[in-house]
């Protein structure tokens, strides 16, 4: 019902269409293959009809589907129309793009309002909604860089980046192996494990805790990136120096979070364990560590992105001639900006997967925590 109300997105999209129609042509006279007027009206139709239809439709799903087709159809036509005419787009081109984007936004809003009963549909929506959002980042990027003719070496369009990824899989794979599977994983595991171990040690030895924690708290706020060149001096060019940076970067968040987590168990629960005359380790394993789990996972999540950044940054200061940071810093010097973005894309993908895996494990093991039970972040 709610989606049959007129929405500002669809309304604005219609206004933009009208302005675009009034200011045609879409491309400047320099365009080698100007868009036909039939094509232009097709684009406008693809935007306007779903926008109007969405006012009248009653089922959320149907109106979402129509909006989806309209928005993406129009975007596809606009982008394919600019092919060969890079840099010749005029105002209406961008207006229509904005209108299509507004439709997509409306589509996402309609989809978000749907309360599906079946769990499959729910999971599907949970994936689809952010996917549409992400797709539009790419669509706008593609259409704007090509429409406005942004120099390739400043910002290549996503299609070029994708093509580069496709053509350079072996190199990317080698870089991922060097940076992620050697430096990041090793550093992450050792850094997290030692942060955890020191936290336990500090917990066990009060003197250590009192002395180490204020220092640890300070150090965890320091610009650790600054030690990257120093680590390269100490540990050499290979992945070990990168792992060392990762270890230092991940150690303190884990230390601080674990200590906070160990203090998180309730007084009453600790008193309860005391009434059982439970010893230190029993209380630790049965009460305090489970209670600390959300904190520990928090550190694991923070560290999953920190580790990647740390390793790549460290590679700027000297490496063998393989690795993601190496590739980024050399290829930009060679003006292969598409390769740089390919590496960045791979890094973002790897980082997201890494984060996602940790988040999934968290969901499975801290199922009891209100933040997980409630299902909200």
């Amino acid at each position, binding site marked *: 019902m709610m989606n049959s109300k007129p929405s500002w997105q669809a309304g604005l999209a219609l206004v933009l269409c009208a302005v675009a129609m009034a200011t045609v042509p879409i491309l400047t006279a320099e365009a080698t293959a100007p868009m036909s007027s039939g094509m232009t009206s097709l684009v406008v139709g693809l935007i306007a009809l779903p926008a109007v239809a969405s006012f009248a439709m009653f089922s959320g799903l149907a109106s979402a589907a129509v909006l989806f087709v309209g928005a993406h159809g129009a975007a596809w036509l606009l982008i394919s129309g600019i092919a060969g005419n890079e840099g010749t787009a005029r105002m209406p081109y961008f207006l229509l793009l904005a209108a299509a984007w507004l439709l997509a936004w409306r589509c996402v809003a309609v989809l978000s309002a749907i309360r599906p009963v079946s769990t499959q549909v729910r999971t599907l929506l949970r994936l689809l*909604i952010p996917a549409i959002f992400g797709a539009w980042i790419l669509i706008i990027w593609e259409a704007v860089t090509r429409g406005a003719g942004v120099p390739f070496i400043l910002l290549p369009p996503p299609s070029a980046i994708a093509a580069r990824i496709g053509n350079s899989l072996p190199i990317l794979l080698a870089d991922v192996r060097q940076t992620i599977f050697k430096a990041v994983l090793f550093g992450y595991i050792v850094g997290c494990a030692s942060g955890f171990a020191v936290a336990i040690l500090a917990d066990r030895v009060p003197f250590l805790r009192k002395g180490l924690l204020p220092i640890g708290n300070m*150090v965890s706020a*320091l610009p650790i990136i*600054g030690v990257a060149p120093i680590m390269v001096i100490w540990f050499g060019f290979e992945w070990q120096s990168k792992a060392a940076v990762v270890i230092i970067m991940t150690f303190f968040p884990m230390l601080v979070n674990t200590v906070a987590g160990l203090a998180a168990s309730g007084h009453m629960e600790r008193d309860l364990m005391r009434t059982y005359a439970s010893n230190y380790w029993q209380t630790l394993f049965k009460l305090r560590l489970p209670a600390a789990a959300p904190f520990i996972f928090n550190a694991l999540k923070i560290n999953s992105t920190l580790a990647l950044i740390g390793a790549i940054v460290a590679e700027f200061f000297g490496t063998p001639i393989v690795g993601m*940071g190496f590739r980024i810093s050399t290829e930009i010097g060679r003006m292969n900006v598409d390769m740089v973005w390919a590496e*960045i894309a791979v890094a973002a993908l790897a980082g997201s997967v890494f984060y996602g895996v940790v988040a999934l494990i968290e969901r499975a093991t801290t199922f009891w925590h209100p933040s997980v039970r409630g299902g909200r972040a």
Partner: protein
Amino acid sequence: MDRLRDRIIPVITILLVIVAAWYAFAVYMNAPFQRDLDRRAGLTPGTVEFVGKTLSQPKPTMPAPHQVAQNFFENTFLRKVTSARSLVYHSWVTLSSTLLGFTFGTALGILIAVGIVHVIALDRSLMPWIIASQTIPILAVAPMIIVVLAAIGITGLIPKALISTYLSFFPVAVGMVKGLRSPDLMHLDLMHTYNASASQTFWKLRVPASVPFLFASMKVAVAASLVGAIVGELPTGAVAGIGAKLLAGSYYSQTIDMWAALVAGSVVAAMLVVLVGIVGKVVERSMGGRPA
């Protein structure tokens, strides 16, 4: 008084242990090069003399604590603060872009959080991409950001501040989403029974409830901001700032300068975090917070 001692003695002890370990490590790290030097010069110093030399190299692999302390002291207190050699000057440069970026970042983070909490479509679609944005290696993008911004005429403080913004909005956004959602269901129901408007619920319930989360994430954000400012200084030609100091030091293997710059960075970081902490305490106290 007793408490003070209870806190200070352990910290001092641990610091002493660290310094001692640092000295030992410095000797260990600097020894191979010193041996090469002596071999080339045909010297065979005794152990004490040798150790002394390893701790007084002009460009040591690992500077000794007193070398760093001396350099830090000289460049902090004995230079005019406007001089390009003064660490105070460089710290100030970094601090100013840190603060600017931190302000932007906090504002942006809060804005995003408000959007996520109030607009379902944003709630469903934004979060995964915000997380993905943080997995982009900023150092790789930083030079491009600086170049692109310079192309449209934005130079100086703002590009660096934007990198700080990029790093600092994330913790604030995540923390504030948590914070704005932290009111109990029962408190929300209560506002509902009063038929309170969304803005009344926001200002009277969600905002006060999120204050502890705000300050906790601001502590993380201010540290991230500093990292961003330093990273932003690296590619811009080593003109000024702690990052520039680090970089210039690294070109000329001036390790002592680098360590002193790191110490300066640490001092700035510590001051910022403590400051945010104090402001947080004051605000919480004024909101009737229970003393710990």
